[in-house]
């Protein structure tokens, strides 16, 4: 608001009048410095970010895998590799949903083996694979069964690490661990995505093991909820299922409590 004969002194800023030259000169130095600080923040946020691993989620490439359909403890497909070995590929639905409701009715509880092919999108990290099932009739019964193999017992273990949902950690989320991801992991596990425990081997490499109850059944969400994405120690027994590690947990506790009781964990 001004009347006629507007005057603009050179030392007093009014927004609707020309900016005084002193203010203009000052801002031409001050604002670029602020912008540079902000750009430095952008660079540092990324340069010092936690590594996210080499996981991939191939949403654009639908694939079909054939093998033995397994329903427990979690839906998976035993797939024969070209070299004669067998890998276990976890099966999940789209979103944060497990595939139990779809797979369980297809697998008899009397131990009869079921051959099937599953169609979907691969999620893979460090040589471990998961298949996110396509949305329309993704499982077709029939096909060739891979050779039978018994689980290899490893024995008693104490694993210090973090409980994550397998889907995000394998490549859907990057990162798929840590506190920022906790609610997502909680929602995934609540929806039936298989939980895993992630730990670091002595050589620094990451290891993942499926986490189940002592009797081999899935752990209840209530038993896991408060431990997800927190530093934990799991005691139990471990076994290998066609190269996929699985820990049957007899006890889950906070890592710092166990450290206090027994010294630094290895």
């Amino acid at each position, binding site marked *: *608001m*001004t*009347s*006629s004969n*507007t*005057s*603009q*002194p050179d030392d*007093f*800023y*009014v*927004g*609707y*009048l020309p*900016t005084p030259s002193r*203010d203009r000169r*000052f*801002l031409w130095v*001050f604002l670029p410095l602020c*912008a540079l600080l*902000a*750009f430095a*923040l*952008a*660079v*540092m*946020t*990324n*340069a*010092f*970010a*936690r*590594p*996210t691993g*080499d996981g991939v989620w191939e949403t654009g490439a639908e694939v079909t895998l054939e093998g033995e359909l397994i329903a427990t403890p979690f839906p998976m497909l035993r797939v024969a590799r070209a070299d004669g070995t067998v890998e276990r590929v976890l099966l999940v639905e*789209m*979103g*944060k*949903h497990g595939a139990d409701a779809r797979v369980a009715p297809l697998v008899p509880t009397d131990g009869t083996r079921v051959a099937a092919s599953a169609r979907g999108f691969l999620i893979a990290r460090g040589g471990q694979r998961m298949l996110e099932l396509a949305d329309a009739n993704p499982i077709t019964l029939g096909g060739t069964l891979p050779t039978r193999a018994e689980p290899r017992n490893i024995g008693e273990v104490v694993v210090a690490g973090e409980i994550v949902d397998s889907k995000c950690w394998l490549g859907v*989320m*990057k*990162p798929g*661990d*840590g*506190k*920022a*991801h*906790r*609610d*997502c992991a*909680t*929602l*995934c596990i*609540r*929806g039936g995505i298989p939980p895993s425990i992630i730990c670091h081997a002595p050589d620094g490499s990451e290891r993942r093991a499926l986490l189940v109850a002592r009797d081999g059944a899935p752990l209840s969400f209530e038993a896991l*909820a*408060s431990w997800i994405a*927190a*530093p934990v120690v799991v005691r139990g027994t471990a076994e290998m299922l066609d190269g996929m590690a699985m820990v049957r947990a007899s006890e889950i506790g*906070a890592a710092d409590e166990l450290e206090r009781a027994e010294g630094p964990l290895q």
Partner: protein
Amino acid sequence: MSVSYRAVQWNAAKKAYDRRLIVVIALYFAVFFLAASVAFETSPLILAMRACGTAAIALLIFILSIGPLARFSPRFSPLLYNRRHLGVTMFLLAFAHAALATLWYHGFGVIDPLTSILESGAAFEGAAQFPFQPLGLAALVILFAMAATSHDFWLRNLSPRVWKLLHLGVYVAFALLVAHVAFGVLQGAIWPGFAWMLAAAAAWIVALHIAAGVKEWRADRVRRALAADGWVRVGEVERIVEETTEGRAKAVVIDDCRKIALYRENGAFSAISGVCAHQGGPLGEGKIIDGCVTCPWHGYQYIASKGQSPPPFFEKIPTYELRIEGRTLYVHPQAKPPGTPVPPCKIAGLEGSPS
């Protein structure tokens, strides 16, 4: 100031201000995505979420710095003028961050996203498990309330006092956001520098506000003597004339908190409230332009001897009576109702000049 409401009262300064703001934010996103493409691999959605979040908090720190900095130097006034656009932009960035986080982390599940946020960390133990999402949600609600009421329509209808009180909520929002970051993403950070940066930013904001407050307090603490009839002694006329120039004011405080601006115009002094009716700007630091006291914050104008804006505008502020006894200037502590004309107090021998 206006006689009617418009969505945005654009002028050249605001347009230039907003153009530069958009360019800087666009460059920030470009730098962020470029740095990410070199440094590590993640999804564009998570990158966008992080870019929005970091940009919002950096902008909030900048916004909170402007006010106290302007108390130390008028060179920061151009930043103050259009601060509301910065605030609304910051809210939009924060909202985009929250929307992406809600979609990606809390969506596609067996419970609805809002329930997932509010249930977050229901069974937490200790700082490492402290739920950080509800803190961010609470801050976003405050920022939304501020952005939604940022227009002068709300300023007038809520009253400047209530509006200002509501907008002081930004400090609560800032504290919540510091906690949101500290208990959230920092818990998984592998570089301790991030924690130091956040602590430094919080300390900067607190220190800057304390410094500005101390400066104000020192200026306001002058005790003023009362005459027998209740008038308040401002000071010797010669001294006040020395301290002021034509078109400028001497700011005084009476009763420990009431600010009065004594404007020198055409060889006389007029006393008006030192608080702008718009957003409480410091009228004592304004200047008479075109015969009107002009607020340094947003350029609202008042005729000093009338305590009201020139027609067609209708803002009014309280006025005060002045008198000279001997060589001493006194002000009557009883404020006249806003918009009450009071004849200027002529100073013998003091010549005026065009402002």
